[in-house]
């Protein structure tokens, strides 16, 4: 009951912010539309990477970066105000806080996937069951992005979270390989990109969408490891902040 009440409050705080909705849903749709326009302007069939079945999973991963922003901003604002002091003095437990912040964001991530793939279908993606598998394969990534947002919000102020997010969003976009083929770039860039979770989340969703399920475990293992590691870090930092 306590957890539901707190999670409900957080859901309202996020969904009542029009900028959250605009950036969380509007920007990914804009990117899909932009790439479609760019692709149709290129003679021939256009670059492989910009084909809708390759680009849409990347946009889904990129849109999750905004989930990190929403989570981070919400916690940071609560920390900066006295509202969190009031909650810390209440019977809520650390588990209630973390789940209360995280749970409302998971349906939002799924909604982002649904909107992204629905728009992709409108732009030529073949509708089939693999879209559902691709969405499911993105769940660990969604958890990682939520956990990262919790970590950011537990450490930084709301203004700092905004600044850090712009770097993080770039890293998610470029590091995922949605804009260029990492295999073609190679070298240090490829090594760094494959050490981070973004490219693995992208590759897992792309593989699921193509029905190439054998490729999933290796990529998902990276994402799950990052999600768990970041989640544990966020929980530890949040608990530490509670006691300060």
């Amino acid at each position, binding site marked *: *009951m306590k957890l539901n009440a707190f999670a409900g*409050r957080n859901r309202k705080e996020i969904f009542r912010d029009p900028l959250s909705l605009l950036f969380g849903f509007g920007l990914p749709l804009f990117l899909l539309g932009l790439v479609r326009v760019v692709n149709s302007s290129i003679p021939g069939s256009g670059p492989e990477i910009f084909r809708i079945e390759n680009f849409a999973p990347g946009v889904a991963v990129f849109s999750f970066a905004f989930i990190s922003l929403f989570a981070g901003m919400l916690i940071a604002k609560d920390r900066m*105000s*006295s*509202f969190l002091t009031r909650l810390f*003095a209440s*019977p809520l437990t650390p588990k209630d806080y973390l789940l209360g912040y995280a749970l409302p964001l998971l349906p939002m991530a799924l909604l982002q996937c649904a909107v992204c793939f629905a728009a992709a279908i409108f732009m030529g993606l073949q509708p089939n069951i693999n879209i559902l598998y691709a969405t499911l394969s993105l769940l660990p990534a969604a958890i990682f992005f939520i956990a990262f947002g919790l970590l950011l919000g537990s450490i930084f102020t709301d203004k700092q979270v905004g600044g850090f997010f712009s770097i993080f969003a770039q890293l998610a976009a470029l590091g995922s390989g949605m804009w260029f083929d990492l295999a073609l770039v190679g070298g240090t860039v490829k090594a760094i990109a494959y050490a981070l979770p973004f490219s693995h989340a992208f590759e897992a969703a792309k593989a699921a969408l193509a029905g190439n399920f054998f490729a999933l475990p290796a990529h998902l293992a990276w994402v799950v490891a990052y999600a768990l590691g970041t989640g544990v870090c966020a929980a530890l930092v949040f608990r530490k902040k509670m006691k300060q």
Partner: protein
Amino acid sequence: MNALEIRGLTKQYKNRMAVDALDLSIKQGELIALLGQNGAGKTTTIKMLSCLLTPTSGDALMLGYSIKTDATKIKPQINVSPQETAVAPTLSVRENLELIARIYGSAKEAAKEKAQASMEVFGLTEHAKDRAKALSGGMQRRLSIAMALISEPKILFLDEPTLGLDVRARRELWKKIGELKGKITIILTTHYMEEAEALSDCIAILHEGRLKALGSAEELKQQTRTGSFEDAFLTLTGADI
């Protein structure tokens, strides 16, 4: 039984003693004001008593439970109105009240009823659907205190409840706080002399983390042989002007 028994409560930061071996007993239903200048240790004391900060040493028994070991038993029985207004900005007045009621264990329907009753008591009914961030400073503070009371706490902490309010809003809030006297135990911090004098049964003067004096405003004036409570405070805190 005393509502609160503080024994040697101490909080030390690296180079600063925020609260130094505080001893204090507070009876049930009593309103005690912790009075002191900025940095006197008032807020740190409240944070320790409301289980937000761990004491460096000493302990306090709240309703018989130790703040060091029994926080889970204490928290459902207390509530806090922090120094700054602590409301969820995009929730309405009603939603803020229902949220706190539910966090403290009320079922959904009971929370609605409590929120309605609370809005009537605090004159917030006509703002029920207004978002908290749209309220004036005085109304936000009123909501903040209503949120602290909706859980029906046995002990209520009010940290600088009228800070930044205009005279009228302050007087209105004093009236609301005055109506609670005798019903619940209230620990109020303030650095307004007249607030401590007007509201409290007992005043604890803190200075540099230490308890300098304890008694009613009248007793403290007699003790210091001063004509006004402000002079008594200045004398007790060793800051004659």
